[in-house]
């Protein structure tokens, strides 16, 4: 039982997540647990080919199977669906200012004429149960004319590449250029130019709960209710309303019940989220589709795959004068799942934590015959961090300097914050040299350098990597579903219980606890009296959901300021009842009491729930100008973002800049290429901590994600475009036994742009291990001539660097 004691603030304390106790008891409702009377079960027949023309498609035999109720192909959808609206950008037209030029394809949710990746949905089968629906998949008859697949972004961008969309002039889906300063002069003035081509691999978040959609159509009301495992209930609702073709516009309610992990994979408008509801409308019965893991690996977005041709201009002392990058992002088939927004982020933040004022980047987002590229925890910043942090080590090596010293020389100094970077964002706060100094201490950097020399003399391959990566958070973009605001409705009922409804969503972050902490502080009430509603478009204010660590930044700000505004009303009413000055009334321990008194008599204090009763049931006791009720909606607008970009592509796109200095010591087995992590240290700054145990959990979980991405996780394709990683057996994620010894420490520079000083805790750890371990492994293999230009750091890839005679490049 949690009670509020005196003036101790709830925020900053590790309140346990008692409100989520139902998940410990097997009682939480995930989308797969939704049960509706008469519910049917859907499966998708998916493309077996990477790139092919569909020459014949027949569902006749499948429909003949007893128990099969409905089958749909693209032909059946053309009269039912306008086309899938793009996400997150809302327009096909190039945006104003420096926003990117984008191509979108018309889509109805099922393949039309061509298939463009293995796993693309081609037909929907709806049956009485899942087993029958899966049986029916084997009866779908399809014939294909195979086409050459595009499997590489850089060659795929060329004029000679096969076209995914034959009415396009090339496969380049998005072009974006951004620049700041005078890059040509910087390179002309340089003592040294360091160049490298770096390839980030394709991996993803793979939440343990796959996606799923349950849809029910109420014909009399012309209303759809859709349960979906998504991070963006409201956006899915609007996209669905805009995509369904009907005589009378169908009203849509979207519910995201408990979501079993999101990580960006559930940030998009997926074909299944359109086709399953249409299936429910046609079948006249509720329809459920639950993704299998195999489907997830093929059809839920991948991320990260980029190639960077980067060059850095330096003075001999290690000062960076300028930076150029040319980026090819492998978008897979360009579905509206967030990939475009993700890759645009990368060129904005390649300069990272460093004062690099002369910078230019050219981005090519290329459609290929792979699974669509989408959002993933670390959203474009992981790729940027890999690029800049590999280059920092490379610059140090070329100049014969210590990699820590080169970083220290170029860090944005603490006194320069808020710092406007070359691409236009305002970094809120930070102490990069302080974090690096602490990292060097905790890692015993100097000691390991000595031990490394001794080990090398014995033929052992020890490597040390140190990095500092930023994780720009709380994004906003004009003309898109992610805008820099957050809406919260807060209502206290006549018994003093509070319901907070937000346009965000929870995929495990613990909002029901942290929101109660924020509200409890403002209203001076027991957090047990606060209930949180999210992920239901009928019961929450419009909002763009959870992504980009935005809850910590705009979400907490909206909740705090909404409750503060409600608290002001409570205090005004209490002051009136107590015949006191409103400025003298405090809300503490569930009471409104006059400051300077003991607050223990009816003359000096009134219970908050009694104030609530007055607001609803004794309105004759209200101050004359006061409206009845204790309920309000508050829209918080992020003060640290801008619209639109200028002519050079510069815009303040992200508002908060958590970061982490990470260091690793690894040993590489020269026989096998296996990487063993001997020590891993992370010095993390996400501003103030709302709930320290939740913050730590977010960072630790993110690090596990990043470690998996660095070491094992990858989606690979055979030369014919067949995906080779279709199950967890072929896509290795870290297990409990894979976690290395970790040392975590937090330093705190509060975010000055938010009332709580929070920056976002959940993504930095995903970004840092990739460059950190890449640097450590290169440091280990460099004496043997090895280089780490590609990921992940699997034994095969590392071994190849030790035996470069076998390398392909």
């Amino acid at each position, binding site marked *: 039982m949690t009670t509020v004691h005196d003036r101790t603030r709830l925020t900053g304390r590790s309140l346990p997540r008692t409100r989520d106790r139902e998940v410990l008891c097997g009682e939480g409702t995930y989308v797969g*647990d939704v049960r509706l009377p008469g519910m049917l079960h859907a499966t998708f027949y998916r493309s077996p080919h990477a790139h092919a023309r569909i020459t014949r498609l027949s569902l006749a035999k499948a429909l003949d199977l007893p128990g099969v109720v409905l089958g749909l192909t693209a032909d059946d959808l053309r009269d039912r669906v306008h086309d899938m609206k793009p996400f997150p950008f809302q327009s096909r037209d190039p945006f104003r200012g420096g926003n990117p030029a984008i191509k979108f394809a018309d889509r109805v949710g099922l393949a039309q004429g061509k298939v463009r990746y293995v796993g693309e949905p081609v037909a929907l089968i709806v049956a009485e149960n899942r087993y029958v629906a899966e049986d029916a998949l084997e009866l779908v008859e399809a014939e294909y004319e195979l086409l050459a697949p595009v499997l590489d972004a850089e060659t795929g961008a060329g004029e000679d590449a096969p076209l995914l969309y034959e009415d396009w002039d090339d496969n380049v889906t998005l072009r974006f250029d951004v620049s700041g300063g005078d890059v040509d002069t910087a390179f002309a003035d340089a003592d040294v130019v360091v160049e490298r081509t770096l390839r980030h691999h394709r991996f993803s978040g793979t939440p343990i709960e796959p996606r799923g959609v349950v849809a029910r159509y109420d014909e009399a009301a012309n209303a759809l209710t859709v349960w979906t495992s998504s991070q963006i209930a409201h956006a899915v609702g609007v996209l669905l309303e805009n995509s369904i073709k009907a005589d009378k516009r169908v009203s849509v309610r979207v519910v995201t019940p408990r979501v079993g992990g999101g990580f960006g994979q559930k940030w998009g408008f997926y074909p299944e989220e359109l086709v399953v509801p249409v299936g429910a409308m046609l079948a006249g019965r509720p329809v459920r589709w*639950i993704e299998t893991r195999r489907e997830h690996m093929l059809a839920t977005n991948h991320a990260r795959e980029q190639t960077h041709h980067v060059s850095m201009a330096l003075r001999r002392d290690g000062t960076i004068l300028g930076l150029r990058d040319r980026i090819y992002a492998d978008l897979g088939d360009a579905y509206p799942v967030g990939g475009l927004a993700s890759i645009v982020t990368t060129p904005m933040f390649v300069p990272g934590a460093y004062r690099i004022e002369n910078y230019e980047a050219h981005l090519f987002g290329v459609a290929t015959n792979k699974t669509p590229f989408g959002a993933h925890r670390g959203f474009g910043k992981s790729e940027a961090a890999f690029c800049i942090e590999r280059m920092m080590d490379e610059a140090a090596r070329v100049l014969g300097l210590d990699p820590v010293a080169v970083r220290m020389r170029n860090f944005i100094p603490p006194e320069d914050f808020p710092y406007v970077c070359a691409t236009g964002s305002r970094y809120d706060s930070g102490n990069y040299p302080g974090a690096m100094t602490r990292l060097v201490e905790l890692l015993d950097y100097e000691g390991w350098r000595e031990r490394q020399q001794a080990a090398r003399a014995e033929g052992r391959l020890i490597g040390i990597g140190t990095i500092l990566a930023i994780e720009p958070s709380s994004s906003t973009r004009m003309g898109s579903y992610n805008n820099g605001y957050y809406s919260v409705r807060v209502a206290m009922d006549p018994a003093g219980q509070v319901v907070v409804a937000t346009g965000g969503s929870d995929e495990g972050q613990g909002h029901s606890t942290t929101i109660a902490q924020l509200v409890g502080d403002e209203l001076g009430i027991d957090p047990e009296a606060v209930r949180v509603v999210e992920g239901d478009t009928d019961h929450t204010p419009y909002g763009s959901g959870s992504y980009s660590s935005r809850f910590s930044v705009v979400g907490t700000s909206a909740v705090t300021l909404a409750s503060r505004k409600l608290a002001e009303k409570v205090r005004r009413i209490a002051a009136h009842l107590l015949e006191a000055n409103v400025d003298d009334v405090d809300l503490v321990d569930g009471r409104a009491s006059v400051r300077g008194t003991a607050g223990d008599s009816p003359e000096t204090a009134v219970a908050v729930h009694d104030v609530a009763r007055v607001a609803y049931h004794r309105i004759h006791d209200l101050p004359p100008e006061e409206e009845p009720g204790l309920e309000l909606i508050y829209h918080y607008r992020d003060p640290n973002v801008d619209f639109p970009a200028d002519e050079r592509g510069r815009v303040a796109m992200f508002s908060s800049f958590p970061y982490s200095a990470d260091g690793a010591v690894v040993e590489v087995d020269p026989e096998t290429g296996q990487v063993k992590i001997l020590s891993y240290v992370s010095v993390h700054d996400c501003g103030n901590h709302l709930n320290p145990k939740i913050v730590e959990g977010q960072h630790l979980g993110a690090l596990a994600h990043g470690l998996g991405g660095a070491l094992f996780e990858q989606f690979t394709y055979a030369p014919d475009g067949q995906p080779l990683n279709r199950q967890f057996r072929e896509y290795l994620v870290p297990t409990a036994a894979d*976690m290395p010894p970790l040392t975590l420490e937090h330093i705190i520079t509060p975010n000055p742009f938010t009332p709580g000083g929070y920056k976002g805790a959940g993504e930095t750890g995903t970004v840092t291990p990739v460059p950190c371990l890449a640097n450590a492994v290169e440091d280990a293999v460099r004496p043997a001539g090895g280089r780490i230009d590609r990921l992940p750091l699997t034994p095969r890839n590392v071994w190849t660097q030790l035996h470069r005679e076998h390398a392909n490049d």
Partner: protein
Amino acid sequence: MIPIPAELSAYRDITLTVNGRDHRVRVEPRTLLVDAIRDLVGLTGTHIGCDSTSCGACTVLLDDRPAKSCTVLAVQAEGSRVRTVESLAEPGVLHPLQRAFEDEFAFQCGYCTAGMLMSGLALYERDAPPGPDEIRRALVGNLCRCTGYEPIVAAIAKAIGDRASRPEDAEVRR
């Protein structure tokens, strides 16, 4: 209940003993235990994350041993004692493992949690208390993408440690 068209397959009536109660259910020979538990017995706390024995979200105890119920046929479980996450808490009282998970923030999204708790329960009920490394090894069949595992290992170790030091573990209100 899943309606099964009779002409599709021979189905049979079996008795599943789940959490100490017998359930008479009609299944196909191919019906997976996890589907029978979720759709026929009606206990949805056991989750499906991979359908292929990798992730462990569907872990239940089958005669006191952890088993991945996505890879057991329902007919194979007849005659065995099946325990699921719903068996852990008494009305109003969390099991010490559940309490330790709450204390250690050992869950985030909660989707893997049922499987983690059941694998943890098998360790908790061992006569010889396992140490942290043994716990880690015992959990390699249970994937979690949220926590980084350490809080889960800590919670299981804590519950086991508490049990070793205080056999009649104090209970908390649920």
